């Protein structure tokens, strides 16, 4: 067969321009996602991270409503970019990098000033006595007020550590910085918080 002349044989893989898969009823089993060679249940991923992402967004935006919208955006991006994920061990950092980007888009778009004070009266589903509730509320107000005084970078690292509950290694991946720098930033943020609390006389 002379491939050099009058080649009319179609090229490989030109099967159909549109590979239309017929609509089928969805399977009952929980959908799984393939990450590298691992299969991960999407439900597990969602259950594991939903609250953490929501908490992070509440912390970043100070607005429970905006936080819910942003959580939806984060998980929609997660679903559409699952192929980018290569290792189950990197899920946390990858997911919070997406969350951070979504939050950054939100701030760019709406140019809102964040005040964490609005979160003081947030959700209190845990049962406790009115006195305990009052003490907890005052403590939260005090700390959230002082967090407002930290730099954006320090607040971000506090959010990833204490709200998203990420390891320093994961925070380093999210913020694109060495792990040691994360440790230093955390130490500095806590020191500044301590100083601010001393100034307020709140650390008795």
């Amino acid at each position: 067969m002379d491939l050099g002349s009058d080649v009319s044989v179609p090229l490989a893989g030109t099967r159909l321009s549109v590979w239309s898969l017929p609509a089928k009823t969805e399977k009952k089993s929980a959908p799984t996602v393939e990450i590298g060679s691992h299969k991960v249940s999407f439900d597990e991923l969602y259950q594991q991270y939903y609250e953490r992402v929501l908490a992070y967004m509440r912390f970043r935006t100070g607005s429970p409503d905006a936080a819910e919208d942003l959580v939806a955006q984060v998980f929609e991006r997660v679903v559409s970019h699952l192929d980018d994920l290569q290792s189950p061990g990197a899920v946390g950092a990858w997911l919070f990098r997406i969350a951070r980007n979504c939050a950054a888009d939100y701030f760019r778009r709406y140019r809102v000033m964040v005040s964490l004070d609005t979160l003081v009266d947030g959700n209190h589903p845990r049962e406790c006595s009115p006195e305990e509730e009052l003490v907890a509320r005052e403590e939260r107000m005090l700390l959230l007020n002082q967090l407002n005084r930290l730099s954006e970078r320090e607040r971000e690292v506090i959010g990833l550590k204490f709200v998203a509950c990420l390891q320093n290694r994961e925070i380093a991946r999210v913020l694109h910085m060495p792990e040691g720098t994360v440790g230093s930033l955390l130490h500095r943020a806590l020191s500044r918080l301590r100083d601010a609390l001393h100034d307020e006389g709140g650390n008795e």
Partner: protein
Amino acid sequence: MKDRRADVENVWLDKLDAIAAGDEQPSPGDDELLHIAGRLTAALAPLGELDAGARTHKQRLGSQLRLQLAASKKTRLVKRWAFRSIMVAVALLVFMVLGPGLLFQIVPGASQNDHTNGAQTQQGWQMLALHSTSAYTIATPDKLTRGVTLLLPTEIAPDGYLVAISIDNYGNNVKIASYLVYEQDAIFYETPSRPFPPDAYAISVYQTVSIGKTRGFLYQEPGGTNRLEWYQAGLLCDLVSKLPAGQLIMMADELHSVTF
């Protein structure tokens, strides 16, 4: 001294990790910063708690995402196959159009070979000047990686086919090798792969045919070229020719699995 300081820092960071995760409470002997960390953990914990509205949002979003994931799985599957197809198509296009090169070809009996112009003989193989491509590495079967299994014709002399290999990187840098086996009037693509999803051929343009005991799918392209696709021996097979469909099915039936 430095090591000792690093150890202290690591212990402090580990303790901070445990406090931030809510696994531990700061103890009286811990420094003030760890106590502040403990207060911070407690103060920020309610941010992740869900009231009735948030629970509803979570449930609704979860359902939407599951549907979206199911739909995107199909899209990803289509994209993956489309990408593979495009890569092979591009490779072949380059192969046919660009730069001169050599492709080994053995015809069943040298005397039957019509492509004698410019042909050379090397190790019993008839080498024919053909267009080459950087994407495909030309190889004789004896130079294939050990353990590679291909489907090859039985009724053709051992030197009656030629093989080209393309190794492409797909998502996550997975290397996929595609093999071409040229017969007299047909091109045969073989790619080690998982089987197609059962739905893949459930469209009217494909006609289901039997290749021995194997189910095949026949598609006639507008130019009159027949394309027979099937899955066998771990290979995604694609036999393309202008020969009549019946003859293609016979050719496919005569293929046999050879492990090098």
